[in-house]
């Protein structure tokens, strides 16, 4: 279980998180929605320890994320970055099996390559893709490789940062389906941040609406359309009128 309790984070005069409280149960898929610049990415990076909150507490499985063995902590996570964040200097298979080629999870070269090819196949890419470099791939393929890398070490918790941004609707649908299948198949806890309502409906068990640095609404995805929450309603229907200012 992941819990955030009264988490605050500011960058200079800008107060991004202003008391975030959220619980994500083990084995569930939580999707965080909210407008651009509302702190979704900061929140996700705070859980990973990439950003240190000014105050408040974040725990994963009861342990504070800022204390203890960082390597062991991070070994429990997989993450799909918005732009893929693939390493340009490495071929695809070494990107996928990056964690398996070094550190505590190190495997023999041949085994790491076999696992990479298996994970590539799982996300719908052929073994021929393994020896290409990221710059030789389309945006959709890069997302899939990023997804394969996120699941390569079979993590307990997977984060998805804007998984469908920049993809056409069909490819977005493919990625959404893959994410859902993989999360269910692995029994992993998932946390996704997105603007894409089709992703929300395809991926989420629960959703949380972040606005003005706090969670405005959280609950099961099935209750989303009947929430009566003005912020959530404005966001899911994409209305210019409402409590969320269109120009921020």
């Amino acid at each position, binding site marked *: 279980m992941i819990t955030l309790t009264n988490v605050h984070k500011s960058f200079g005069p800008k107060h991004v998180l202003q008391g975030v409280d959220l619980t994500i149960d083990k084995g569930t898929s939580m999707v965080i929605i909210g407008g651009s610049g509302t702190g979704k990415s900061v929140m996700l990076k705070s859980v990973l320890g990439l950003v240190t909150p000014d105050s408040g507490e974040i725990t994963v499985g009861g342990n504070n994320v800022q204390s203890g063995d*960082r*390597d062991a902590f*991070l070994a429990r996570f*997989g*993450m799909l970055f918005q732009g893929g964040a693939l*390493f*340009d200097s490495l071929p695809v298979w070494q990107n996928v099996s*990056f964690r398996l080629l*070094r550190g*505590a999870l190190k495997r023999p070269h041949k085994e790491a390559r076999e696992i990479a090819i298996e994970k590539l196949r799982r996300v719908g890419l052929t073994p021929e893709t393994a020896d290409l470099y990221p710059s030789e791939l389309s945006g959709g393929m890069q997302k899939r490789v990023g997804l394969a890398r996120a699941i390569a070490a079979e993590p307990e918790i997977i984060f998805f940062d804007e998984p469908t941004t920049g993809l056409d609707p069909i490819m977005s649908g493919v990625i959404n389906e893959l994410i859902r299948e993989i999360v269910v198949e692995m029994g992993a806890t998932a946390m996704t941040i997105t603007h894409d309502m089709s992703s929300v409906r395809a991926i989420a068990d629960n959703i949380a609406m972040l606005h003005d640095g706090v969670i405005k609404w959280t609950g099961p995805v099935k209750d989303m359309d009947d929430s009566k929450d003005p912020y959530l309603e404005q966001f899911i229907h994409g209305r210019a009128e409402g409590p969320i200012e269109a120009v921020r």
Partner: protein
Amino acid sequence: MATVLTPLAAIGATVLGLLAAVGRVALFALETVTHLFRPPFYGREFLSALVQIGWLSLPVVGLTALFTGGALALQIYSGGARFNAEEVVPSIVAIGMVRELGPVLGGLMVAARVTSSIAAEIGTMKVTEQIDALVTLSTHPMKYLTLPRVLAATLSVPVLVAVGDAIGIFGGYIIGVTRLGFNEAAYLKNTVDFLQMWDITSGLLKGAAFGFIVATMGCYYGMNSGRGAQGVGRATKSAVVAASVMILAANYLLTELFFTS
């Protein structure tokens, strides 16, 4: 009163900013060095950096040294002719190359080629979240990106300097023999006789210091790059400028240390 204080405040703010920047670079360099004594080590990245920084810089350093050695021979011959001291060309070319021009020009050429490349590469990795990705993959960016490059540069630049010294002396020899009428054997004898081991060693030590500066500045500015293409461009420019100035400043300090005490 305000008209007097405003320029003073501006100077004070600039000095404080500069001192803060020096402090941040010093802490960054110190952290890099401490990783040398803490595993894991990334041997493959070190070897790759050694090829990129050392081997692939050889042509540019060699050509720079060749032309510098030749020009130096012409200058010393022309200057020495004013007081009938043309015969000092071989010894001055050799001493000038190994003590000063070899390490300084080699360091500056490596700064132009390598510092810019490191800063741009790491800066791009930062803005495309590849550095964050490294962290989430349980890999310390300082260990994986910075230490291999700094270590490779510190070890390979002295070798480049040594090769540059030899090529520079050879450049002087070619000009001395073909253009200035020196006897081949006499030129070589004068070169060897007047050159001392400390001349060579001091140049190589300078090379190691310049190598450390070159890679550290590239990594520092890359890791602290701003967002977007403009941020990476600014980081690259700042890295090369800072590395070049630091090489020249360190050269003065090392020369003071090596030859005046």
